[in-house]
């Protein structure tokens, strides 16, 4: 291992499956040296040029900015800073068409350049070995370095490895396998020292991996030679560090990170993993250079090398172009003939996409602008039916089954697509390239991937909606339950108030109870309490009903007496001219009779009632004893008198009956007359007895 040239021959290479050998078309753009463009009058700098969240604008319209000044700040870890590419004035921060297959707009900062290209002050760093690794990463991050190979992955994020990942291989990707593109080739030729310096810098940041390998395809002899010279002449910052230059055979897509790592280390990245999981990190040569310049000179990423190629241009070359330069401006400076061009593609012929709008600017990931003629890139012929030749599976570098994926993509069978690992597809286009039926397979996979992503995000949203819905249901149920409890409490309180009012009506007899009830109703009611009050109320009504009934009966009697009196009152003629008729007299008689009947009824009821009440109150035995005692205490004279009285009453009745019978001429009239006479005799006897008794007593008492 005396020289780098020797070491390169000893590097063991592996092979990746599949791959194709398309026409390289790299000659056209490598014949002229790296060019430069005049500063465009206007720069359009999108705030999202990388994978991740768009940067947040930190400038305002009307601000004057210098080249390299921060205009967009990274929004979160997964984002990148955006800088002004030249000095000038900010004229707009607005949505502008992006270099994106959708042709959609995104937020851009538009700068009217002043042509002076004044640089903002930068912080240089002579010896990065004395600087903390985190500080170096911060510098790279501040410079807004993102993967220049095409993906635009924020480099600082890539270099921040997890503690569980011990990186033992650093791969610097200079393979550049895609047809037409020679930007990395030109960069390696022109700035080989920067590439090597970048490789050493990244090695230092990654804690000195055992191997640093620069992988270059063997179709770039000038770049390989330049790198060899640079490696052998480079003053190594670290004696142990050794850069290996691996010349890999030209085969598309060797420039894919996964494929290059596999070729150089023999390690295949498992499904769903990153290169760091196989202890390797792959960085594009342009990215390594940008990282180096960011650390060494404090230079932010404001320009890049881009291949401008295609037969519809008069000049085909590589240029160092300011980021934000409108693509139509670039094309104008290369003699673009829109009548000859079939379309303008950003990226190479395999993985690039047709630009829908040429006003879109060059961004950090624009490695090539391809403006082919109609002969060079004819419109694809209509797709024919799949003949199941299997060529696509043979060339697939990811060992997938493109044909199967095609069917499932057509059927939009999300589950089977995922089961067939569609996300391992790197969209290299090898399958479409070899397809004899010219089926645009990659387009199907891209659509299917997008579908699946949408499907997943929709599913997530649906799950969230479900959660929110269920939570709402639960919440409403809870609220209802609380309301129900409150409602019950209110109902109970209302019932009590009603009860209380009823009692108040009855409380004339017992006002004390009312007071008690007020006390009970104010507190929160409990079923037991309610029961007690109810019982009490019931008891009082029972008790009161006695007095109530009594008073009621008395009232009825009084009313009956009144009506009897009024009925007995002598009739007064309303009109003195008309005397009272017979008829009126008869009516009065009947009224009197009715009133008397009612009075008798009422009196009977009262006496019955009083009797029952007395019975309730008094012991019947006691009552009998008192009655008996009263009888025994009576004197014989009193007894006699009482006897005579009763007999006289009976006599009167008998006389009445006899009289009636006589009037009616009934057969019992004689018998009744006899009974009357007998009664009269008895009374006379009793009178005599009484007289005798009185005579006896008088002398005694005298």
């Amino acid at each position: 291992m005396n020289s780098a040239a020797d070491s390169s021959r000893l590097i063991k290479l592996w092979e990746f499956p599949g791959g194709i050998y398309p026409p390289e078309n790299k000659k056209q753009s490598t014949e002229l040296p790296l060019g430069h463009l005049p500063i465009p009058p206007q720069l359009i700098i999108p705030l999202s040029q990388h994978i991740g969240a768009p940067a947040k604008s930190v400038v305002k319209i009307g601000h004057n900015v210098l080249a390299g000044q921060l205009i967009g700040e990274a929004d979160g870890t997964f984002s990148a800073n955006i800088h002004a590419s030249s000095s000038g004035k900010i004229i707009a921060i607005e949505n502008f068409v992006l270099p994106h297959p959708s042709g959609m707009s995104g937020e851009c900062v538009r700068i009217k350049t002043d042509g002076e290209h004044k640089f903002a002050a930068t912080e240089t760093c002579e010896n990065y070995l004395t600087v903390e690794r985190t500080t170096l990463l911060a510098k790279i991050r501040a410079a807004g370095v993102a993967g220049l190979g095409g993906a635009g992955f924020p480099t600082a994020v890539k270099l921040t490895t997890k503690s569980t990942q011990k990186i033992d291989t650093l791969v610097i990707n200079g393979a550049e396998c895609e047809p037409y593109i020679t930007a990395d080739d030109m960069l390696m030729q022109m700035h080989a020292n920067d590439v090597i310096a970048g490789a050493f810098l990244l090695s230092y940041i990654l804690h000195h991996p055992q191997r640093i390998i620069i992988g270059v395809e063997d179709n770039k002899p000038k770049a390989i030679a330049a790198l060899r010279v640079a490696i052998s002449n480079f003053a190594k910052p670290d004696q142990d560090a050794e850069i290996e230059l691996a010349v890999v055979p030209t085969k598309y897509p060797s420039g894919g990170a996964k494929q290059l790592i596999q070729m150089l280390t023999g390690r295949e990245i498992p499904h769903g993993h990153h290169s760091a999981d196989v202890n390797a990190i792959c960085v594009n040569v342009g990215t390594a250079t940008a990282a180096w310049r960011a650390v060494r000179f404090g230079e932010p990423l404001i320009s890049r090398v881009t291949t401008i190629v295609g037969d519809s241009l008069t000049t085909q070359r590589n240029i160092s172009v300011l980021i934000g330069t409108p693509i139509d401006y670039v094309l104008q400076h290369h003699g673009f003939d829109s009548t000859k061009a079939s379309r303008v593609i950003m990226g190479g012929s395999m993985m690039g996409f047709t630009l829908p709008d040429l006003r879109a600017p060059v961004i950090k990931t624009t490695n090539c602008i391809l403006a082919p003629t109609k002969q060079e890139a004819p419109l694809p012929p209509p797709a024919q039916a799949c003949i199941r030749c299997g060529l696509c599976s043979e060339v697939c570098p990811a060992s997938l089954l493109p044909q199967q994926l095609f069917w499932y993509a057509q059927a939009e069978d999300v589950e089977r697509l995922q089961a067939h690992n569609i996300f391992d597809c790197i969209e290299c286009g090898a399958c479409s390239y070899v397809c004899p039926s010219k089926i645009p397979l990659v387009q199907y996979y891209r659509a299917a991937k997008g579908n699946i992503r949408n499907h997943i995000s929709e599913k997530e949203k649906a799950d969230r909606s479900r959660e929110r819905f269920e939570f709402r249901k639960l919440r409403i149920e809870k609220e209802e339950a609380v309301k129900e409890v409150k409602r019950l409490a209110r109902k109970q309180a209302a019932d009590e108030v009603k009860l209380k009012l009823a009692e108040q009506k009855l409380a004339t007899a017992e006002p004390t109870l009312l007071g008690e009830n007020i006390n009970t109703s104010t507190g929160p009611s409990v079923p037991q309490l309610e029961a007690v009050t109810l019982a009490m109320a019931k008891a009082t009504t029972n008790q009161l009903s006695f007095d109530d009934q009594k008073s009621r009966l008395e009232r009825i009697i009084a009313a009956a007496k009144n009506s009897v009196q009024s009925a007995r009152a002598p009739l007064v003629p309303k009109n003195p001219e008309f005397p009272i008729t017979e008829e009126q007299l008869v009516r009065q008689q009947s009224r009197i009779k009715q009133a008397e009947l009612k009075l008798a009824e009422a009196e009977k009821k009262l006496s019955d009632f009083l009797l029952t009440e007395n019975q309730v109150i008094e012991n019947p035995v006691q009552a009998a004893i008192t009655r008996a005692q009263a009888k025994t205490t009576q004197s014989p004279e009193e007894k006699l008198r009482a006897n005579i009285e009763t007999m006289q009453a009976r006599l009167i009745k008998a006389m009445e009956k006899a009289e009636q019978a006589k009037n009616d001429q009934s057969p019992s009239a004689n018998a009744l007359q006899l009974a009357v006479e007998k009664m009269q005799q008895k009374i006379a006897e009793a009178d005599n007895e009484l007289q005798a008794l009185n005579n006896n007593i008088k002398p005694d008492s005298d």
Partner: protein
Amino acid sequence: MFELIFQNPIASALIALVSLSLLFGAILGFAAVRYKVEGNPIVEQIDSILPQTQCGQCGYPGCKPYAQAIVDGDAINKCPPGGQSTINALADLLDIEAPRLDEEHGVEPDVKKVAFIREAECIGCTKCIQACPTDAILGAAKQMHTVIADECTGCDLCVDPCPVDCIDMIVVEPHLSRWTWELPGVKPLQLIATDKLHQGQAA
């Protein structure tokens, strides 16, 4: 022992079978009790297919109740937001024929919409908040309300209750982060002879 078995092959076979059936019956009985699944798992599966817009266009107050109704025998073609793809998925799950969407319950929306409250006109009545099945409207009484667009399912239920008609259903603008490639518009030609004949006849 073996002699006894050989001498009474039928009786021993009977005994063996009966004892085996008792043993396995006991194991199954234990498993049925021990590993009893709470609730109806098919309801959960149907619910996970439904789009969770909670719009009630099916006639049930939400997707879960509709899932339960499907299990109880209701038709699977009453979900317009889910559209034919949901019907197909349900038919697949339940192993029945996929019917067409029942137009009575609405038509499949071609664009995604979310509710938007014109805040200047909002009077803060909270009626839309009460109507929203996913709690995606924020606000308080006599305060202006607003829709959390990310949580809005576009169910439309808030539009009717609004007394001042300040809620619009606006189309979700296509955004770069949601953009995806489209499937190639032209399907590959069919080269099978019968297909060609068919096409020729049609033309």
